[in-house]
């Protein structure tokens, strides 16, 4: 129980956050962070814990988003139903895919997920009669205030973390990690590796699909290039997982915060802090630095990614075993 005190305290802080910080800008950033916690947890489950690296999380994310969007657009239902169904539809995509593709190992599986990502994006683009193609799906947002979205996102993030925590301390968790560590050994001790990889993938797809539905509801507009984006969703999910900590329960939470917050810090030049400093000091070096960071924030960010992979290969939060010392 002692282990849970820290997270509980942190949860209380998060619950109080929108009441303390009224600025919608920061609330918006936190909603994104919480959404990425769910996606990152999903990725971490299949890749970090089970060792089956996925480059195609966007396939599930997009399915969740489109489920919510199409429910509203085609059936006139509330897009909030998507929160219930988005994850399920993502699983419906994940299931046959995993069934067929889990005979592939390592990088080959990763490539297959990448292909799934692209196939889904093309399908959503071409199938105009269903998805409206690139015209996209537009729904009216339910709330003006960000606070309801914040709490829904928080609930999803907490559910993700708790389910990962629960799964990982159960039989499934041990099986997942065994598969990651050595698939042959896992088979030889009676683990149906194909089946448990499927379980892991479907759980991951569910969480990712859930996040996708949240995105649709919160942003109100989607098109195939946004939600099936290889770069902005799939790779971002991997970065969240890796930066935070591969195979750790709270890693994706840290990763999500870093990826969203740091990229925003770079994008805005430290929320405008750099410009203030430049104006205050008037030093030409600062002018140069500010100009560089403002114009090349993606470059800076890319350098950060390289740095993290080189020097923190298992992310900011350490490896699985460390968090299991308490046993």
């Amino acid at each position, binding site marked *: 129980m002692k282990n849970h005190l820290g997270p509980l305290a942190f949860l209380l802080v998060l619950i109080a956050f929108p009441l303390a910080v009224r600025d919608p800008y920061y609330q918006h950033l936190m909603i994104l962070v919480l959404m990425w916690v769910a996606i990152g947890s999903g990725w971490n489950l299949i890749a970090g814990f089970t060792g089956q690296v996925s480059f195609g999380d966007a396939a599930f994310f997009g399915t969740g988003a489109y489920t919510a969007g199409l429910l509203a657009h085609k059936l006139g239902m509330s897009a909030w139903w998507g929160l219930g169904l988005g994850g399920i539809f993502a699983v419906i995509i994940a299931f046959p895919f995993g069934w067929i593709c889990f005979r592939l190992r390592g990088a080959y599986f990763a490539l297959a997920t990448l292909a799934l990502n692209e196939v889904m994006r093309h399908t959503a683009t071409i199938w105009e009669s269903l998805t409206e193609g690139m015209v996209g799906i537009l729904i009216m947002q339910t709330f003006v205030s960000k606070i309801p979205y914040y709490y829904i996102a928080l609930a999803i993030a907490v559910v993700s973390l708790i389910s990962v925590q629960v799964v990982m*301390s*159960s*039989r499934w968790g*041990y*099986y997942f*990690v*065994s598969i990651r*560590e*050595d698939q*042959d*050994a*896992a*088979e*030889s*001790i*009676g*683990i*149906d*590796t194909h089946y448990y990889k499927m379980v892991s993938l479907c759980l991951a797809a569910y969480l990712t699909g859930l996040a996708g539905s949240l995105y649709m509801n919160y942003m109100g507009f989607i098109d195939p290039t946004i939600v099936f984006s290889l770069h902005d969703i799939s790779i971002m999910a991997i970065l969240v997982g890796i930066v935070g900590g591969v*195979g750790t329960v709270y890693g994706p939470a840290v990763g999500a915060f870093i990826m969203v917050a740091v990229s925003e810090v770079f994008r805005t030049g430290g929320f405008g802090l750099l410009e203030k400093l430049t104006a205050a000091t008037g030093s030409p070096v600062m002018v140069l630095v500010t100009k560089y960071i403002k114009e090349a924030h993606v470059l800076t960010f890319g350098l950060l990614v390289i740095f993290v992979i080189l020097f923190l290969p298992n992310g900011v939060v350490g*490896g*699985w*075993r460390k968090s*299991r*010392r308490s*046993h």
Partner: protein
Amino acid sequence: MAYFETLGLVKLFGGLAAVNGVSFDVNEGEICGLIGPNGSGKTTIFNLINGYFPLDKGEIYFNGNKISGLKTHKICREGIGRTFQIVKPLKRMTVLDNVLASAFLRSHTKSEAVELAEKTVSFCGMTSLKDKVAGSLPIASRKRLEITRAMATKPKLLLLDETAAGLNPVELEEAIALIKKIRDSGVTIIIVEHIMKVIMTVSDRVVAINHGMVLAEGTPEEVASHAGVIAAYLGEDYCAAG
């Protein structure tokens, strides 16, 4: 029908027969040694029994059931555990977690599994190492971990693949003791081993393999004095000269 029985196992690799019509029986409760020179197909036979490779021909029966054609994990569920010649520890997990992962197979709840794992760890004499990370263990402990992990699946038949290779004399004695202890607990064992001392001391019966075929079968003494076996190990010339 014997407790464990293989009938005409054949495995081809790219047209070459690695195992070519191997049939042998193992009786309940005995230790059966599998010997043969390098490349004679012993490990391949294990991989066939264990379902790691699909059989090209032949059948395997265990405890009255046909197990050939089943998936590896099903075969384990049937009660056949194995160790690997090249050890495959779950590196980033502790010794106890390694064992726990396999103890789940015969447990309904986690607490049951933990209990079984602790019991197995202490049975195999690894209690002092149980919180060590598997990747950090020396080779002898890794080999022992292989056995411990296999034992946690409560096997009726255990396949040991070169568990004694690379051990020093003290560790060797410990390993032999452990194997005997496992046999005494009621587990049937098939053991592949290079070190003759181990085979001769623990085996009740020995099957000699060469070129993927059974060369001789019998008590350790019978097989050791079999002309063909000596020839296979030491070369035709030695045999002719002798």
